[in-house]
């Protein structure tokens, strides 16, 4: 699953006769999403309304933002289990800044509340990255450390207490609706567009894929593999920090025990369903968006049909397996 430095990489796959991949890797997820949409349009009352669209998009926005960072990490052959804990840390810091603004300056407090938590989460991401690059610790274990300790850090900072607030300026990031579109959906689309561009059009994107494809070869080709890996964990941290702000803004409260709980699993599931190989070397940011939308729409469909949450979990599991199985066949 993960490939630490210093150990021999698994032997390169022998060239085997393969079906030529004529279709785009997005085809499977697109078909799945389209059939889900069609099914709901036909059978779920009031499905084709702006209201339904907004509900589904707002519920998926934070998962997508986190999952984009996860896609980059996974593309290098790594994994980031700490994202949920980093959301909790970011969510814990923000209210402290605007509830007790430094120098009593409310505007300054707000400005810091939007930036400092995200940067702190990014720094924790760099910490993950440095464990992976400097100490050669497997990504799973390196990020497991903050998975265990991170939420504790957030709880220690807040003494485990719920922080409630009503601050319309800060709340805008989760509740604002320019032109009727939820603000976090705009943020989500911006993040997706930015990183889709980064992965397909920039040198950095090429480097990420090269590191995940064959790290030893990438290093020999002069790619700064350690710096690339450090960067992807940093980016994953930054995006988790941003998602943390959105979650607490939506709730108008910050609960270190709850913010970002199970987010790592949701994000990894979205990445896997979206067609990014968990073994690294391939990534599709748009696929991740589609993956998250598919999982969300399945949940919505089941709930709309009155299927209990417990059964919905089993169905979600089956969908993840089927989607990943189909992707595997196509490779």
């Amino acid at each position, binding site marked *: *699953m993960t490939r630490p430095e210093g150990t021999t990489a698994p*032997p390169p796959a022998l060239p085997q006769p393969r079906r030529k991949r004529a279709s785009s890797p997005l085809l499977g997820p697109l078909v799945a999403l389209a059939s889900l949409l069609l099914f709901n349009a036909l059978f779920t009352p009031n499905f084709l309304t702006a209201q339904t669209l907004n509900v589904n998009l707002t519920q998926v926005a934070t998962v997508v933002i986190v999952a984009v960072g996860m896609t980059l990490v996974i593309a290098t052959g790594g994994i980031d289990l700490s994202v949920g804990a980093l959301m909790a840390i970011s969510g814990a810091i923000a209210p402290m800044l605007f509830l007790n603004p430094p120098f009593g300056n409310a505007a300054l407090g707000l400005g810091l509340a939007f930036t400092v938590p995200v940067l702190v989460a990014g720094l924790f991401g760099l910490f993950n990255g440095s464990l992976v690059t400097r*100490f050669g610790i497997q990504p799973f274990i390196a990020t497991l450390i903050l998975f265990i300790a991170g939420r*504790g850090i957030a709880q*220690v900072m807040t003494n485990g207490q719920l922080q409630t607030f009503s601050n319309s300026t800060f709340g805008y990031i989760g509740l604002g609706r320019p032109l009727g579109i939820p603000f976090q959906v705009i943020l989500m689309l911006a993040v997706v567009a930015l990183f889709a561009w980064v992965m397909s059009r920039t040198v950095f994107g090429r480097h990420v894929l090269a590191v995940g494809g064959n790290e030893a070869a990438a290093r020999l080709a002069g790619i700064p593999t350690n710096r690339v890996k450090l960067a992807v964990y940093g980016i994953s941290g930054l995006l988790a920090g941003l998602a943390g702000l959105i979650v607490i803004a939506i709730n108008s409260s910050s609960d270190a025990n709850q913010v970002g709980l199970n987010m790592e699993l949701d994000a990894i599931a979205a990445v896997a369903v979206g067609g990014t190989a968990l073994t690294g070397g391939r990534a599709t940011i748009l696929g991740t968006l589609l993956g998250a939308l598919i999982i969300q729409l399945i949940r919505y469909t089941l709930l709309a049909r009155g299927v209990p949450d417990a059964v919905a*979990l089993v169905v979600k599991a089956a969908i993840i*397996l089927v989607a990943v199985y189909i992707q595997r066949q196509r490779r």
Partner: protein
Amino acid sequence: MLFGSLRYEGFLSTYNVFSVLGYNSMFGLVALGMAFVIMTGGIDLSVGSVAAFASVIAALLSPFGLWPALLGAVAAATLLGLINGVVVAYLKILPFVATLAMLLAARGLALLFAGNQSVSVSSESGFTTFGQGNIGGVPYTAILLFVAFVVGAVVLRFTRFGRHVLAVGGNEEAARLMGLPVERTLVWVYVLSGALAGLAGVILASQFGAGQPTEGLGWELTAIAAVVVGGTLLTGGSGSVGSTLVGVLLLGIIFNILNFENGRGTISLSAYWQSVIRGAFLLLVVVLQNRLTRRRAGGGG
């Protein structure tokens, strides 16, 4: 070596040692199964929800007596492990994804069977003595844990299956070319992991006096941490059962020390600090481990 530094006054009393063992028996059993899975180069994320599922089944079956409850719950959990194994070995889905799906599915099944609430264990069944009773101060669960680890160690060292596990984890392709039953070995380690998680679930139900569909969150990561602290590499092909037990006990003892210090009023740490310290401890161990394994340059554990 690390053990030596962990001596604290009054803490090696029999009572304390056995209470640590009794309390950690659930994690120990789960970690034992996890160790086998990790030695094949896989991972089992589903153990926590499988244990929760088993605890519900055990509670539902408890009116029929101890043995039907125990065996029924373990059998149900084993079945889920079998599904994991088949999906990994024959559908060739990455263990991470396959068992992630089972993490969700087993939780759903547990909630479904339990009707979204905890299920009380029937009181006259004698079922609760299993998790709470002891012989001369030694909890049954501690005995069970030791028996399981001795059996596990023997299986790994002295049976063909044990050698297959290490061979598959070392190099799956080579193992296949040598004619080893790779798929069957993979199925068996997930079956084993499921069964042991089921046993942990039975202990859970017995200690709580109820089936707990929402318990077991994060167990998989605690178990993985214990296996890693014990020195088994996540890439597979190496590892030992005894060192996994050491890993489980080290993590358990760290908590115990913190509780001791708290009790004496020398320090006062909230539960929140404990998870920070546990994370820091894991960090310390893996960094030290990496230094050591690098020096040994690839020597197997």
